[in-house]
């Protein structure tokens, strides 16, 4: 079990409990976190689960896979901290993870 905090565009925070093995996207969708659309359902095929990882967590998550890097071409305002949340697997090691949700996945 890990706690994941989503910082919404308006600044409010939503913390959810997630089971190891799920993706951060699934944790968001399951808890109806606004701003995570996840059109493709987690196939890394749509870039509508874009999040920005808070600085203190960036190194702990590892690097984007090439497929994820490709898909980020379809996201807007991509930054160094950008990730597709369907590609972040939840484990005890990322308990407390904080990510920012963009205004919209457009």
């Amino acid at each position, binding site marked *: 079990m890990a706690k994941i905090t989503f910082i919404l565009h308006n600044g409010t925070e939503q913390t959810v409990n997630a089971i190891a093995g799920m993706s951060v996207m699934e944790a968001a969708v399951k808890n109806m976190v606004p701003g995570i659309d996840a059109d*493709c*359902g987690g*196939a890394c*095929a749509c870039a509508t689960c874009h999040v920005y990882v808070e600085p203190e967590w960036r190194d702990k998550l590892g690097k984007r896979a090439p497929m994820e890097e490709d898909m*980020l*071409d*379809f*996201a*807007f*305002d991509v930054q160094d901290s950008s990730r597709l949340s369907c590609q972040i697997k939840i484990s005890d090691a990322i308990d407390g993870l904080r990510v920012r949700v963009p205004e919209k996945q457009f």
Partner: protein
Amino acid sequence: MSDVITTDAVIIGAGPCGLFAIFELGLLDIKCHVVDILDRAGGQCAELYPEKPIYDIPALPIVTGSELTHRLMEQAKPFHPQYHFNQMVTELIKHGDNDFELHTDGGIVFRCKVVVIAAGGGSFQPKKPPIPGIDAYEGTSVFYSVKKMEVFRGKDILIVGGGDSALDWVNNLQPLAKTMTLLHRRDEFRAAPDSVNKMRELVAANKMQMKLGQVTGLTGSDGVLASVQVKGNDGSAFDIAANTLLPFFGLTMKLGPLANWGLNLEQNLIPVDTEKFESSEKGIFAIGDINHYPGKLKLILSGFHEAALLAQQAFRYINPGERLLFQYTTSSSNLQKKLGVA
């Protein structure tokens, strides 16, 4: 007034579930017309992951989205489905029990006995990047698709993106344009290598420019764009002069007009029963990713099962009082005749 197409069933969505519904309905002699907003069949399989392998289709250990689509169309062929692409169903009117009228945005009108909504996550629409003030330029300077190339003759065009749409239109519109610039966030493209090479040759020949960065703002007046503000990959900020902007960030799914058809919806999904996969409206079925019921799994194979079951109920509506004989394709010469194999 356009002619009305009269048919047994209209299937909304030509994704895998919609395609398999043609087959299951066809076995029961139910004729189908299929409507899809895309220009081809396949739905998400065609648009989101045509080349990505799928591993959980029964009996196909590995299949790509486009191959699966192709095979499903082959399987449906004996039933002569009629496809209507580039069409969105905008209106659904109920005239009575098993009497529906549907309108598309392209002016097609259907009259049918049952409706099958196999619309997946909704209708695909181009992603509109949330650049401040972009709305003011849409349709005059900002376009999300190319319908007529002539519109772009003599323009200063900026195309944004790194996929096939972006690269294809760079190469196709460059000869018409006054100036052509491609902006992408990195010097790597996921488009077909041929189109990337062609673009690089145009750059080398000074016929166009390629810049690395992302759009931050737009400047212009009265709906006419003058320049685009860009944050370069090196952190610099610069402007690109352009009176035409074509952003290609792929497509997204929006529920669209079906929200207004009077069906019960729960979180943008259509609740159905698990015997008939029927919506709150008699004769309107929903299968695949668009429906919801306890235990629902958004898998293609679930949609196949749902298609088989809805066909049973559709038969009862279309042939009231007639006995429905359950038959296997392996042993029924009747079914084999329909399939054109007996």
